[in-house]
């Protein structure tokens, strides 16, 4: 059981993480590099200053880009192992096979848990924006993720009213409590870059997680078939 989850998570994570890494390099990285020009003070915003919205960017930085794709694969392996663990619990309880298309729905649910739900109150940050203390944001991020996972599980696998209500409360609670916020705004990056970065990060995350979910279902099924034959 353990090795089945690990092996299928490894395959799904490497493949899904590679696709995510390439998509991030294509769509998210240019916005991040643009923002770093403001973070480092090469470009300055505010007041009467105007800058080109299309500056020259150092688009290809081999070591940095390879490391980014590598870490994208590592993080997606972690995602895949968690997702496949949840799929396995469901399989044990219901004794059903999760198809590729159902896997996509599982992936989108995973995306909501680790990416979309925390982003409702703690949007993906571009370098060069003001933010609250790092540790308190990380704690809030983990709590929100756990609450959202429990909430989505309750909503997905119950038809009674009470679990549905509890599920909704769990998802909303971290946002009602509130995420850590900066005490003042001092970030040098223009708002246009921050907004584009957040929507690109969330959009690419959705696509990548949908792919990861489908792949996880396929590899879990393959590993299960191999183990039982």
């Amino acid at each position, binding site marked *: *059981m353990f090795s089945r989850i*690990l092996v299928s998570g490894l395959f799904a994570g490497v493949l899904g993480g590679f696709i995510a890494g390439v998509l991030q390099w294509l769509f998210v*990285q240019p916005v*991040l590099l643009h923002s770093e020009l403001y973070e480092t003070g090469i470009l300055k915003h505010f007041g009467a200053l105007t800058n080109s919205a299309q500056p020259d960017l150092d688009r290809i930085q081999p070591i940095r880009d390879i490391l980014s794709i590598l870490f994208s694969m590592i993080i997606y392996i972690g995602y895949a192992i968690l997702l496949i*663990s949840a799929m396995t619990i469901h399989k044990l309880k219901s004794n059903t096979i999760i198809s590729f298309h159902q896997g996509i729905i599982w992936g989108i649910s995973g995306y909501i848990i680790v990416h979309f739900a925390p982003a409702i109150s703690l949007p993906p940050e571009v370098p060069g924006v003001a933010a609250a203390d790092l540790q308190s944001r990380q704690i809030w991020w983990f709590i929100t993720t756990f609450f959202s996972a429990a909430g989505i599980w309750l909503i997905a696998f119950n038809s009674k009213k009470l679990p549905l209500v509890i599920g909704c409360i769990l998802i909303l609670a971290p946002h009602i409590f509130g995420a850590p916020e900066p005490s003042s705004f001092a970030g040098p990056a223009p708002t246009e870059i921050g907004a584009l970065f957040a929507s690109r990060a969330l959009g690419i995350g959705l696509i990548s997680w949908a792919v990861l979910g489908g792949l996880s279902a396929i590899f879990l099924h393959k590993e299960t078939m191999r183990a039982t034959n």
Partner: protein
Amino acid sequence: MTAFIEISKQSKSNMAPIAFAAFLGLLIIYVAGHSQSDILHNAAHDVRHATGFPCH
């Protein structure tokens, strides 16, 4: 009834490896995505921003 007990015993014994695998997945996400070691932070910097993890 015996069959039911057998199944519930089986699923309980299956829970431990699943929980351990999930813990491992969480550990990978913590180390690669959240650990503040300088080397890890610099190497994973762009991905942490893109995945919406709190970074710096």
